[in-house]
């Protein structure tokens, strides 16, 4: 028996095996439980989204190589705990500037409002605001993150307030264009704007 004959036999065997499997599975076919939910009518991740993504991925990998070739990643002087850092300015990466801005705002408020720096009950750490700027700044960051996490629930509550009868039902699973939901869109734009402002503040008085 030649090699080709053996391969042919294996091929036929596999085919048979596969069709037997398919037939037995189709006969004992069950409903897919997830699909029973009628809310699910989204755009499929595969193949539609994957197609769009793979086209863009090619552009993006080209972009990475282009940037990598022409703009070198920075490597400054070695860290020196004894030296002051005049350059580069002590700033975090760009995506953390908003958090740094929060700290600065809190710091400025503490300086601008002298009341807040008066010690409370004669204690050093505790002032009339009961907290220092750093604590306020950090708490504000936590608050912002908490707001972001709570968006779906806030949205529902908002719907219930605007329309007490159907508000929280009507939005169920309904993605819409921003123009159809002006309140949500406005809140979003406000969020982006305040993010931008905190970022700006982080550059003051370096």
């Amino acid at each position: 028996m030649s090699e080709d004959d053996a391969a042919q036999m294996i091929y036929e065997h596999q085919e048979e095996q596969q069709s037997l499997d398919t037939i037995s599975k189709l006969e004992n076919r069950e409903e897919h439980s997830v699909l029973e939910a009628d809310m699910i009518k989204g755009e499929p991740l595969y193949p539609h989204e994957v197609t769009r993504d793979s086209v863009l991925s090619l552009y993006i990998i080209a972009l990475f190589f282009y940037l990598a070739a022409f703009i070198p990643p920075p490597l400054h002087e070695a860290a020196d705990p004894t030296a002051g850092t005049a350059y580069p300015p002590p700033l975090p990466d760009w995506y953390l500037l908003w958090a740094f801005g929060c700290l600065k705002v809190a710091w400025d408020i503490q300086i601008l409002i002298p009341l807040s720096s008066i010690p409370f009950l004669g204690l050093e750490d505790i002032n009339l605001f009961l907290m220092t700027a750093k604590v306020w700044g950090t708490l504000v960051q936590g608050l912002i993150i908490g707001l972001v996490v709570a968006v779906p629930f806030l949205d529902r509550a908002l719907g219930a307030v605007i329309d007490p009868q159907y508000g929280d039902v009507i939005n169920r699973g309904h993605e819409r264009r921003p123009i159809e939901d002006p309140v949500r869109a406005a809140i979003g734009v406000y969020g982006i704007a305040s993010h931008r402002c905190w970022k700006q503040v982080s550059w003051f008085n370096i």
Partner: protein
Amino acid sequence: MKFNKLIGLVIGCLALFALPVSAETPILEELMRKYTFPLIFLSMAGAVFGVGYLYFTGLLPRVLFDTWAWIDERFALHRYVSLARREYYSVVYTLLPSTGRTIPQSHTERYNIKSIWYWYPFYSLGGLSFFAYIILTITGIYLGFYYVPDGEFILDENGHSTSGAYQSMELIMTQVTFGYIIRAIHHWSAHFMVASVFLHMMRVYFVGAYRNPREVNWILGAILLMVTIFFGYTGYLLPWDSLGYAAGAIGLEMATSIPAMGPLMAQIVFGGTQLTGDTVTRMYWLHIFVLPLIGTVLIIIHMALVWIQGEGEPH
């Protein structure tokens, strides 16, 4: 068939020739410098040529089948293939039973849009974040071969402060083969990933795709956003240059200012209430083990949920 095996043998021999090269022997290092590019080029050209040869002689299906049969005999993969195929078609037919198509209608078809809609790229941002994550993993593995997580301050021969970590970064930037380009791609894809995750969140927000069945995905996403930012922050410190040190000082201040559990947070994240060599070790372990573990698991769940629920894409 025999000819293919011959080609395989030749390529295998070339690979063997490349393997025992050690960076300690100058001659071999010289050889490596000279032949790395040609070898990569040759093997890529060989792959293209080999596949092209098989394709034009009509042998390609046979070779693919032999490979498949070899694997299938051992692992009975046909079971899982038919299972996956059945699942996929059951999904398609249940969602759109009337079409009888094997592929569901696309957004363009459903709403009869005549051209590619200019908002479509925004829906790719999640996928592009994932793509950047994969690139970061690959380049990060390469950087990990050479980076030394040693942040102890020492003096170099000129009396300037330096550290093992910083010296290894200098090595990567100047000496290591492909070190510069790999670090540059790691750097740019990290920035790209943070940006695209932010924008992805905005698109989800502005189309209201976080509503009813998708709240869990929003919360997972918010955690992923923090994981991404923390990835960036820990990586920023690793070179242990003056910029990373300054960022470390700010982060440490923020951590210690958290009421009640500040010192504990500083201990967990920064390895103490002072910036020392331990900080770098902490950041390294977070950056290369803890965050990748959490991030990968969460991304898999996040994307599995999108797979199950579909994307919310309004018109």
